[in-house]
């Protein structure tokens, strides 16, 4: 990006790029040297040696290979810093729940035995922060290079919304206030206002989109809630959320609400910006023409957006579906255990997308009408 800096560029833009580059360099340096900030012992793999290799066949006739590797690693923090530690690692070629380590990997370890000659320990987990950070930076740079200012605003919106979500969940988990539905209701309003303002700025188009999004999302919530109550949640399998010690249904509904929000906003802002665009081009355009073009845009969007939601939700279940099927579960059981909640989310999101189409068309027309009267 530095290459593009030239004299024509305003000073603010240059300094913005400079700040980004400084952030990049310092964060990469930090994650590569942050071992002393961890309480757990960190060790870097400096040598690996394959000790044993064997073929296994499980009860379902799946063939796999098991390996045992002996690892020498250098301890990077704590009082043993600089010393070497001997570790053993067992892994399979499928890597469902294990992992091969190579030279250069950093690991969290616990120290088992300490003697004059050598230290032995066991592996707790891999240290992944530097890789995640690098992918994060590739993401940031791609968005900035392609989207410029738009990309920057998307990043801001992502960071602000993620921070809000984290704070809201802290309030839910740690404070006495336990109503997840209310917390999510407030969150949804904040998410909508912040994202749409960042996407489109302060104007009537945005107000119309915010109104339409909120009406659309809460109507969707009502429809989905009634559908679930009416059928007493028959067919929804909450097993994949069994690790939670909280009411599954509520967490599921909250996730559904937040998950549909982006798509509903997408419909609302696309329709309102095109209706306002048509009005700006031709102030005498009839309400009927505006309505027709808004509905046409909605029709273009609805299939694509519902598919986006479906793939986002369903793809995440692929690994556990493979595990089920490889363990001789029937296709029926596999689908209902792994996909019922995902399909419900996608279908509810689809309902939200479609309900929002007429709502967005009418709210935008209402705002256009008001604007017209003022002039």
């Amino acid at each position, binding site marked *: 990006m530095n290459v593009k800096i030239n004299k024509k560029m305003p000073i603010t833009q240059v300094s913005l790029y400079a700040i980004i580059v400084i952030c990049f360099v310092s964060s990469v340096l930090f994650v590569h040297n942050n071992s002393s900030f961890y309480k757990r012992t960190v060790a870097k793999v400096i040598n690996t040696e394959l000790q044993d290799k064997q073929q296994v066949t499980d009860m*379902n006739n799946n063939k796999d290979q098991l390996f045992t590797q002996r690892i020498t690693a250098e301890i990077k923090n704590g009082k043993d810093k600089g010393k070497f530690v001997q570790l053993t690692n067992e892994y399979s070629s499928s890597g*469902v729940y294990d992992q091969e380590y190579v030279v250069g990997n950093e690991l969290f370890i616990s120290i088992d035995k300490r003697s004059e000659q050598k230290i032995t320990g066991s592996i707790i987990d891999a240290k992944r922060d530097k890789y995640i950070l690098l992918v994060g930076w590739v993401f940031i740079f791609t968005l900035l290079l392609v989207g410029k200012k738009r990309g920057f605003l998307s990043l801001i919106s992502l960071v602000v*919304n993620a921070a809000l979500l984290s704070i809201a969940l802290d309030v839910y988990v740690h404070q006495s206030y336990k109503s997840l539905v209310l917390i999510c209701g407030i969150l949804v309003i904040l998410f909508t206002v912040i994202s749409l303002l960042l996407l489109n700025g302060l104007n009537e188009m945005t107000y119309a989109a915010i109104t339409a999004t909120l009406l659309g999302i809460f109507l969707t919530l009502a429809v989905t809630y009634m559908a679930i109550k009416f059928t007493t949640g028959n067919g929804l399998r909450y097993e994949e959320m069994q690790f939670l010690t909280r009411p599954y249904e509520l967490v599921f509904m909250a996730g559904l609400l937040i998950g549909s929000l982006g798509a509903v906003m997408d419909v609302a802002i696309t329709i309102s910006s095109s209706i306002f665009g048509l009005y700006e081009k031709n102030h005498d355009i009839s309400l009927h023409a505006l309505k027709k073009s808004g*509905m046409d845009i909605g029709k273009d969007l*609805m299939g694509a957006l519902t598919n986006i939601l479906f793939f986002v939700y369903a793809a995440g279940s692929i690994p556990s579906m493979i595990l089920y099927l490889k363990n001789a579960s029937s296709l029926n059981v596999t689908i209902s255990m792994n996909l019922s909640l995902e399909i419900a989310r996608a279908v509810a999101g689809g*309902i939200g997308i479609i309900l929002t189409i007429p709502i967005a068309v009418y709210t935008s027309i209402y705002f256009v009408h008001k604007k017209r009267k003022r002039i």
Partner: protein
Amino acid sequence: MNTLTLLSIILFVLMILIGGNRGVRSFISLFINFGILMLTVILMLDSDVNPMIITIVSCAVISCINLFFINDVNRKTGTAFLSTIVTIVILLLFIDFVSSVSMTQGFGEEQSDALAPFSLFVGVDFAKIGASVVIISTIGAITEVAISITSSMGETLKHHPAISRKELFLSGMRIGKDILGTDTNTLFFAFFGGYLALLIWFKDLHYTLGEIVNSRIFGSEMITIFCAGIGVALIIPITSWINAYFSMKAREKQQNVKQEDI
């Protein structure tokens, strides 16, 4: 009655009411996509076939459905299809590399209870499966961006028939920037919603920041979100370039035909 059936009926009725014929097509495409996803999973059970190849093939089929069935077969959807495939291949190479170095495949220790009843040595390469998951979660968004850009560029070309290739490319980039914001938004919230249960659980366990950032599940979620964002951004220049190239080719051809007529 089953909740999913009732919700699907509501969706179907609404799609017909609002979208008419296109609504029916959208609903059917959802079903076909579900079928393709299941078929993909079943094909992945065969440990002799590389999951990456299966992923590319099924992404090609999915984008055919999303582009040619919901819309029509024409030059617009054709270039959108080509751009989707190019983007998918680039993204897949990147993700394959990332997920193998970042060690985020498979399941984390947090999920060990759920894994207890299963044999884990199933002979399928879960690192490759992990890369496929990322691609498949983004495929819907990638095709959507591609078709939006090629349609709008088609409109631009119609209104300004003499536009230069560079200008046409830049018009595609401009449209792309407009949809980049809304599409990343759609993806991010969908991921937030999908991961909500896990996020609450991380908070319940009182994980420290260091533990969260380094855990396998959180890592794979972050990589999925980042790569999805990279995918919808990457498709913009790729589609704009490919579409500008083919539009100019088509225009030259037309002009040649006209000249021959004269």
